[in-house]
C-alpha cells in the first residue's frame, strides 16, 4: 500500500486507508487510480491522453495530436523527472502510459512501473531467466515494451513467455511459454492487445526457426490461434519452397509488433528473412518471408500478402511497421499501407486492391533492382554463393532497421530513420543445429560509397513520393521517430541527444543536453492533468555495435547504461 502513497495527494490518504478497510481485497480500493483499458479505449488510442500501445495506436503511425509543446515553445523544454536504471545492454523500449501509470521494460525482461508525473517507482518485476542461455538472441537482449488490456500489463520475454501482470501491483496474473528457450526462438517485441487477445510474434530468422504469430486470450493466456509465416507442405504458399524439410527451418520471423485496420478488420504483421540466409539453399520465392501479411485477427487466417523481397539472400526482414494511413497520389485517394523496408525502398500499398501504389528508394538500394507490374524483382548479379563474394546496398542492417518511422497526417509526410550502409557478402558452409545460427553466409558492413555519413533522418511527402527534407548525420540514425500536432518530430541520436525537429523543414529546434547514453529507443508523449510530457529511454546497444562491421568503430566509445528521461514545459 505504501507504494501508492507516494503519488497520492496527502489529504486523500486517509480516505484510501478507510476504503481499504471497507473494501476487500485491498487492491480493489485503488482501482479508481488505474483507468481500465477497454477495447474502446484501444480503438481510440490515437486521441487518448496516455500512450497506450507500442506505436501509440493501431495505425502504427507514432503520431500524437498534442500541441502544447510546439514549434514556438519547444526550445523551453525542461527535465520533469528522470530515473537511472543502469544495465549495460541496449534499451529499445517505448514507455507505455495509462493515466498516471508509466511502464518501462529493460534488457533481460525487467519491467518497472512509475508514477508518470513524479517518477516515483511503483513496482518492479524481473522475469527469471535462470537456466536460459540467451543463445538464440541475435541483436542484443532487448525488450521493446509492454501492452495493456483491462487491469493487466503484458510483456513478451527472451525465453518465449508472455507474462500478464496486474498493472497496479506487478503481481503475475498468468504466464505462458509459447516455445522453449534457446532452440531458435526468442521474443523482444512489445505485444499487441486487440479484442481481448494479446498477440505476439517470434524472432529466430538467424537460427533455423520456423516463426509464427500467436494470439492468446488476454484474461487466461489460452492460445486462440497460431499462424506460421512459412507454410507447411500443402498450405498456400508451400509451392514457393523446395520439397522436403527445409520449410521447418525457413525463418520468416515475426519479431516486430503489427498494426490493425478496424475498417476492414485486418491485422497486419511483417514476415522476416528466410532461413538459412543463403538463398541458393532454398530455391523459390519463399513465401511469406519478407512479406506484408494481412490476417483475420479472430482466426489468424491469412487474407492477402505482398512480398517486399522475393527469395531474399541479404537478410532483408520485412518486419518494419506496416503503417496505416490515407493519402492522395496523382489525384487519387488511397487507403494505404506505408512501409520503409530493410531493402531500402519505401513501399506504399493499396489496402483495398492489395496492389502497389508506388515505391521509391530511400537509401542506396541495389539488391532490389526495380518493379514490374507492381511486383519487385532482384538483381541476380548481387546474389552471393559459396565462392562468390558480392557487394550490395543496403547492408543486411537495412536502409532502415526496426526503429519506428512516423506518419504525420498534418504534413502528409513520413519520417524515416535511415542508415547509409552497404556490405560484402559471400556464401559459406552451414549446418542446422538447434541453438546455433543457421546462416550460410559471411558478411561485412561497409560505408555507402555514395554517402560519407552513416545516418540520416529523412522526410518523404507521401502524396508525391518525393523527399521533403534530409537531416544527415555522421553517426548512424538508430532511434525511432515520433511526430506531434505541435509540428514537431522527436527522435534521438547515438551521442545521446533527444532532438525536436520542425516537421515541415527538418530544422533542429531543440536539442536536449547530452544524456547519460546513446538513444536507440523511440520517444513517446502523453498528457496528465493538462500537461504534456515527452519521455525517452537512453541506453546504447542493439544490433549496430554487434553486427555493424566498419560502422562499429564510429560508435565504439558511446557510454552505456539505461536511463529514463521525461521532459515538459515549465
Amino acid at each position, binding site marked *: 500500500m505504501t507504494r501508492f502513497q507516494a503519488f497520492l495527494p496527502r489529504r486523500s490518504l486517509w480516505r484510501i486507508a478507510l476504503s481499504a478497510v471497507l473494501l476487500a481485497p485491498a487492491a480493489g480500493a485503488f482501482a479508481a487510480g488505474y483507468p481500465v483499458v477497454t477495447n474502446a479505449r484501444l480503438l481510440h488510442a490515437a486521441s487518448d491522453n496516455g500512450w497506450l500501445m507500442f506505436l501509440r495506436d493501431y495505425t502504427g503511425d507514432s503520431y500524437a495530436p498534442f500541441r502544447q509543446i510546439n514549434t514556438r515553445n519547444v526550445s523551453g523544454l525542461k527535465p520533469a523527472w528522470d530515473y537511472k536504471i543502469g544495465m*549495460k*545492454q*541496449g534499451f529499445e523500449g517505448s514507455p507505455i502510459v495509462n493515466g498516471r501509470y508509466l511502464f518501462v521494460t529493460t534488457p533481460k525482461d525487467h519491467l518497472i512501473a512509475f508514477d508518470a508525473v513524479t517518477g516515483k517507482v511503483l513496482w518492479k518485476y524481473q522475469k527469471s*531467466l*535462470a*537456466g*536460459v*542461455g*540467451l*543463445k538464440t*538472441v541475435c541483436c*542484443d*537482449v532487448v525488450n521493446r515494451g509492454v501492452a495493456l488490456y483491462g487491469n493487466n500489463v503484458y510483456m513478451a520475454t527472451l525465453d518465449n513467455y508472455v507474462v500478464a501482470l496486474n498493472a497496479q501491483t506487478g503481481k503475475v496474473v498468468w504466464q505462458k511459454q509459447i516455445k522453449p528457450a*534457446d532452440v531458435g526462438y526468442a521474443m523482444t517485441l512489445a505485444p499487441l492487445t486487440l479484442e481481448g487477445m494479446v498477440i505476439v510474434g517470434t524472432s529466430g530468422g538467424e537460427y533455423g526457426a520456423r516463426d509464427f504469430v500467436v494470439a492468446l486470450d488476454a484474461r487466461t493466456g489460452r492460445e486462440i490461434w497460431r499462424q506460421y509465416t512459412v507454410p507447411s507442405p500443402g498450405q498456400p504458399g508451400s509451392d514457393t519452397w523446395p520439397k522436403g524439410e527445409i520449410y521447418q527451418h525457413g525463418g520468416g520471423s515475426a519479431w516486430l509488433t503489427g498494426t490493425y485496420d478496424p475498417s476492414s478488420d485486418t491485422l497486419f504483421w511483417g514476415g522476416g528473412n528466410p532461413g538459412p540466409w543463403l538463398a541458393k539453399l532454398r530455391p523459390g520465392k519463399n513465401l511469406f518471408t519478407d512479406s506484408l501479411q494481412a490476417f483475420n485477427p479472430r482466426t489468424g487466417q491469412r487474407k492477402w500478402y505482398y512480398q517486399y523481397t522475393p527469395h531474399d539472400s541479404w537478410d532483408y526482414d520485412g518486419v518494419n511497421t506496416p503503417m496505416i494511413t490515407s493519402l492522395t497520389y496523382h489525384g487519387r485517394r488511397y487507403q494505404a499501407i506505408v512501409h520503409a523496408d530493410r531493402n531500402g525502398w519505401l513501399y506504399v500499398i493499396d489496402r483495398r486492391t492489395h496492389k502497389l501504389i508506388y515505391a521509391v528508394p530511400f537509401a542506396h538500394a541495389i539488391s532490389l533492382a526495380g518493379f514490374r507490374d507492381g511486383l519487385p524483382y532482384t538483381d541476380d548479379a548481387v546474389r552471393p554463393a559459396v565462392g562468390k563474394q558480392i557487394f550490395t546496398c543496403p547492408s543486411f542492417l537495412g536502409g532502415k532497421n526496426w526503429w519506428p518511422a512516423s506518419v504525420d497526417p498534418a504534413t502528409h509526410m513520413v519520417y524515416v530513420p535511415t542508415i547509409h550502409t552497404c556490405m560484402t557478402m559471400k556464401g*559459406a*558452409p*552451414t*549446418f542446422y*543445429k*538447434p*541453438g*546455433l*545460427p543457421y*546462416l550460410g553466409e*559471411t*558478411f*561485412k*558492413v561497409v560505408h555507402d560509397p555514395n554517402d560519407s555519413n552513416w545516418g540520416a533522418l529523412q522526410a518523404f511527402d507521401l502524396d508525391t513520393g518525393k523527399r521533403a527534407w534530409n537531416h544527415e548525420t555522421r553517426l548512424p540514425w538508430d532511434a525511432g521517430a515520433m511526430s506531434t500536432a505541435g509540428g514537431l518530430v522527436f527522435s534521438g541520436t547515438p551521442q545521446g541527444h533527444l532532438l525536436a525537429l520542425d516537421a515541415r523543414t527538418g530544422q533542429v529546434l531543440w536539442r536536449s543536453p547530452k544524456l547519460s547514453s546513446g538513444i536507440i529507443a523511440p520517444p513517446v508523449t502523453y498528457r496528465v492533468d493538462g500537461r504534456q510530457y515527452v519521455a525517452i529511454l537512453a541506453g546504447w*546497444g542493439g544490433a549496430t*555495435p*554487434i*553486427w*555493424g*562491421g566498419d560502422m*562499429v568503430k564510429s560508435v565504439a566509445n558511446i557510454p552505456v547504461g539505461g536511463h529514463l528521461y521525461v521532459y515538459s514545459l515549465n
Partner: protein
Amino acid sequence: MSVRLLQICAYALVLTALLPRRGEAASPPPALYTRSQALQGASAFEWKCASCHGHHLQGGVGPALEGPIFASAKSDFTIQQVYEFLSVEMPAYAPGSLTRTQYLDITAFLLRQNGYPAGVRALTDRIASHCTVPLLYRPAAKASPKVVKSKALAGKPLIVPRVNAP
C-alpha cells in the same frame, strides 16, 4: 600425429556413448590442445570476442561460452559444431576475419574454460572439424582425477569454475 588425436577424440566419443549422461560429462575428457594454444587463445578471445561474450565468458550481448548452460547435454553441441560455427560466423561484426591459427587457439581456450585438459599435441583444423565429441561443461570439482593429474596440466589447475547466470 593428428591421426593419434583423432583416435583420442574417437575414444572419448565411445566412452561418452557408453557412460550414462547426467547433465554433466561423466567420461574422462580428451586432451585435444596444448597449453600454449589455450594461452594464445585467451588473449585472442579478449581482443576479438570478450566485448560481446564477456571478459569471463559469462555472456553479454552474445551468449555465455562457458558453463553448464552453454556446454550442456541439452545444448548437445559437439566440439566440431562449435568450432565450425565460430570459425565461419564469428566475430559477429566481421565473420571469418581471424586467421585459422587464431580460431584454433580460441577453440582451445573455450575447451580449457569448459574443463577440457591440455595435452601434448596441438589442436589442428583437421581434428577440430572432425571431432564429434560432445562439448559438456566439466566443473573442476567434478572433473575426474585423471584429468586433474594429467601431465600436460603439470599440477596446475587451469580451470576456474564459474557459474554464469546470464
